[in-house]
């Protein structure tokens, strides 16, 4: 799959006459029972080597609440909160240069590239008497980074020649399921000169998918099966006890 994406890439770029061409090695990541993480591999080609390429991978969006504990009557309870709506719960990005100057930084901020830009873009609501919302966003970044679903530092694009590049984004075992959007930007003269949007799906397959779908679509039958399993196990143990 990787090889085919690699071989067809220059052809795609020429055929479309675009300044930027990007292809994902696979448009799905399958979560099986033994899933222990994976990677999103993509290849790209830019026509002009005097341009910069930025790629952002955004996971499915959910509402995230960050609570801060405070001491109330001797106990540590969730006291203050900031709720971020439609927050991508997986976020990673790559950039083709190590030197991000002021102008490039501004382009990134304006176009939602990098976690600084994400903070500006995301709507949030906070509890009363809370002065520092930014601190809660930093905590979100820290906690998500610990889970391996948020990457503060950009991934390095690997250039195979002056124009052809490759990027790998880690997807941990704890990655959320759903649609992942891959935004690819070509930046020329501090402006976005080309943009591509691709997507891939991280989904449970096989036994996992069967269990997950059953739990949501046929929850009553699913519950009955769980209880039958428990009843059978309990009966089996009692038979074993009598025999021993």
């Amino acid at each position, binding site marked *: 799959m990787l090889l085919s994406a690699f071989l067809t890439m220059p052809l795609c770029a020429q055929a479309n006459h675009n300044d930027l061409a990007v292809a994902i090695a696979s448009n799905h990541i399958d979560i099986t029972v033994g899933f222990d993480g994976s990677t999103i591999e993509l290849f790209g080609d830019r026509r002009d080597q005097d341009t910069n390429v930025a790629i952002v991978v955004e996971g499915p969006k959910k*509402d*995230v609440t960050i609570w801060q*504990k405070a001491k109330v009557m001797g106990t540590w309870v969730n006291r203050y909160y900031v709720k971020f709506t439609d927050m991508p719960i997986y976020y990673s990005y790559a950039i083709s240069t190590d030197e991000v100057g002021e102008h490039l930084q501004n382009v990134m901020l304006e176009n939602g590239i990098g976690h600084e830009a994400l903070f500006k873009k995301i709507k949030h609501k906070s509890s009363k008497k809370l002065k520092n919302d930014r601190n809660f966003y930093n905590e979100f970044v820290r906690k998500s980074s610990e889970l391996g679903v948020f990457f503060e530092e950009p991934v390095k694009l690997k250039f195979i020649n002056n124009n052809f590049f490759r990027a790998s984004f880690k997807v941990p075992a704890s990655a959320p399921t759903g649609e992942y959007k891959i935004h690819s930007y070509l930046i020329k003269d501090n402006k976005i000169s080309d943009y591509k949007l691709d997507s891939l799906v991280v989904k449970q397959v096989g036994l996992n998918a069967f269990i997950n779908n059953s739990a949501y679509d046929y929850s*009553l039958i699913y519950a*009955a099966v769980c209880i039958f*399993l*428990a*009843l059978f*196990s309990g009966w089996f143990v009692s038979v*074993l006890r009598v025999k021993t």
Partner: protein
Amino acid sequence: MQIYLPIAEMSIPVETIFLLGGFVGFISGVFGVGGGFLTTPLLIFMGIPSAVAVGTQGSQLVASGVSGVMAYWRRGHVDFMVGSVMLAGGILGSVVGIIFFQFIKYLGQIDLIISLLYIVLLGSIGMMMLFESAFSMFKKKTVKSEFNRFKSPSLIHKLPYKMRFPRSKLYISVLVPGGIGFVSGFLVSTMGVGGGFLLVPAMIYILGMPPLLVAGTSLFQIIFTSAFATIMHATVSNSVDILLAFFLILGGVIGAQIGVVASKKVTGARARIILALLVLGVCSQIAMQLFLLPSDLFVMVVK
């Protein structure tokens, strides 16, 4: 070996779940308790979302309940009539518990409420068990009989809707066993514990049931209440992970067999002291998280 749990949506070493199930099964085999008070907090310590831990634990309680009640049933030590009335209360308690569970989840205070409930319940039961066992070590042994030496409080006998329970030789208001069942149902759906360690003394001291029938009858009631709580959790919040339940039960089956063998060496008051210390150990662990400065002051909730 890592295993991906389809409902918890996380990967976890299968050996860890298996060992946890085995450990709880062992405790269950040695002491004759369901072990829910250990499984749920330990699952949460392992990183399983609290909703999934509580929801899944119900099915394990069904398994341990069935294996226990079969043994008592063979000896005729189950009062199905009292158990059925308790069950009616238990189902109502489960419904209230599920609504309460959803409400505290909405408030974002699920960890606080669950922790406080655990501290109050485990702390009081553990202390009572410890004192009772320590005193009984110095007393003569008593045999469990068909008759209850304790008289239930006089207020209990003034309650309406009285009913005769021939097997337990009781003439008492249905509100009493129904109320005890209600508490049990509430505990199953909010905390994932069967509450056997709370039901047994309540049935002896409040209901006035013969001690010989208490364990079997409470387990009978716990099976159905837990099954009902499992259905509610599976249908209302989709928080029952069958794969997690399977490995917990599998470990529990093996652990329980080893526990039964080990129970011959640890009996009577000594066994109850060990169990009391275990209960207090879990309680103090939860209390420390609540009362001492947490290592992380921030909590993330994704919906």
